[in-house]
């Protein structure tokens, strides 16, 4: 067992689809939001929507940290990278995200800024150790999964007494984002977006556990099923959600028990609690200012906070006015509702963040689902 191929067995997927079709005969419509970009990617890549009955719909959520990072933060990182003494270390995912005025980290690098792509937060530490004359800044983004490694890097830097390492912290939290969606007028009052339940985060939950979702299940009466990122994981989660709806239940269930424990990872949570504290509010692309939805570095570790060391301040910045990323991230629109989609905005020349990350709804649609659309328009040419 290698824990990958087993969960991609088409025979089992079809059997699950049959069970879902049988179970979903009870109601005329089921609408579930998959929060994570990882799920969005798997759903598109494996064509899961084609296996599901037409009235069981999956709505893409805002769970892609690259997609929800506002333009202003990208601009701030680019300005920082233009300082001659700074080496900016970034995960590869962020390199091509458009800032204001058609800039990006990749273009800033081409223009001479010292920007380096890293795999792990500890790579940035190593660069700081090897190049003491440089001010090495880790451009940290990500949900709860990616936050502990940043905390680890800061603690290790403190232990090593590194003077030239700081973190530009953009870590965000999953539960406040889910709450923001459920509280939005579109869902709560206007009913423009109807959600019956959530496919809960996979790897975020390995850290925070299944317990933090209990509040949503209870308060908003929406079932949550935590699911892995493989296609059979998603199919099984959909079946579990359909059954909960049919039975009038709204509980937190864990499909991903092989990786997620109820309490999450205590070691990782302790590290994060030691280094970070809540920000009063943080701007999300698409969701606007969300209270207590992000982390900043505690005062005890202020020496490692790039925002303090370099006096960084975000300047107001606007998304491309034609870009519908915001509405796509809220589940109100689909990628094809955007007039930039597939015309000027493609993964080669992304205008919005959802087209940059392979987990973004637009990139997933462009890469996999546009062929499905084409087949639907002209069924005689569809490949069976």
């Amino acid at each position, binding site marked *: 067992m290698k824990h990958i191929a087993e969960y991609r067995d088409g025979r089992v997927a079809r059997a699950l689809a049959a069970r879902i079709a049988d179970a979903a005969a009870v109601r005329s419509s089921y609408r579930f939001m998959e929060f994570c970009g990882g799920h969005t990617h798997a759903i598109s890549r494996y064509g899961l929507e084609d296996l599901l009955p037409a009235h069981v719909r999956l709505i893409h959520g805002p769970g892609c940290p690259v997609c929800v990072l506002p333009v202003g933060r990208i601009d701030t990182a680019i300005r920082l990278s233009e300082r001659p003494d700074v080496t900016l270390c970034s995960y590869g995912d962020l390199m091509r995200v458009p800032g204001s005025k058609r800039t990006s980290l990749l273009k800033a690098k081409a223009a001479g800024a010292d920007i380096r792509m890293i795999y792990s*937060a500890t790579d940035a530490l190593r660069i700081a150790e090897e190049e003491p004359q440089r001010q090495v800044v880790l451009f940290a983004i*990500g949900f709860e999964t990616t936050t*502990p490694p940043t905390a680890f890097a800061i*603690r290790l830097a403190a232990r090593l007494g590194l003077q030239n390492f700081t973190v530009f912290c953009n870590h965000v939290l999953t539960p406040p984002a889910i709450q923001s969606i459920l509280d939005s007028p579109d869902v709560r009052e206007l009913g423009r977006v109807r959600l019956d339940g959530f496919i809960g985060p996979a*790897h975020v939950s390995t850290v925070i556990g299944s317990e933090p979702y209990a509040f949503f299940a209870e308060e908003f009466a929406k079932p949550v099923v935590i699911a892995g990122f493989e296609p059979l994981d998603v199919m099984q989660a959909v079946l579990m959600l359909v059954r909960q709806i049919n039975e009038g239940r709204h509980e937190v269930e864990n499909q991903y028990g*092989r990786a997620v424990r109820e309490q999450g990872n205590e070691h990782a949570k302790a590290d994060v609690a030691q280094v970070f504290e809540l920000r009063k509010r943080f701007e999300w692309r698409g969701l606007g200012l969300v209270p207590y939805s992000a982390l900043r570095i505690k005062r005890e570790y202020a020496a490692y906070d790039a925002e303090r060391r370099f006096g960084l301040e975000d300047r107001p910045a606007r998304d491309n006015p034609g870009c519908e990323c915001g509405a796509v991230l809220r589940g109100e629109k689909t990628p094809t509702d955007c007039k930039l989609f597939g015309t000027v905005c493609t993964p080669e020349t992304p205008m919005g963040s959802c087209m940059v990350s392979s987990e973004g709804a637009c990139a997933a649609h462009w890469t996999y689902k546009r062929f499905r659309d084409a087949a639907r328009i002209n069924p005689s040419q569809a490949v069976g």
Partner: protein
Amino acid sequence: MCLAIPGRILSIRGEDPLVRVGRIDFGGIVKEISLAYTPEARPGEYVLAHVGFAMTVIDEVEARRVLDELRALAESAEESAPDGVGYHA
């Protein structure tokens, strides 16, 4: 972004939890991964690695239980529809 890849621990070095690392086999590619957050991990076990850190040890028993359940479901579906059209895709 939150992707984590399963890999099998070949060996472990370092006692200090802050610098304990494992050599992990990801289907033939071997990388060193921090085990700071999985002090319970032992050689031979699978972990899920994300940005250079093992975030959780895979529970083999639970994985086996779910897979057996799923495969049984597929077999029962095929038995009830021997001509292979037992699904409404």
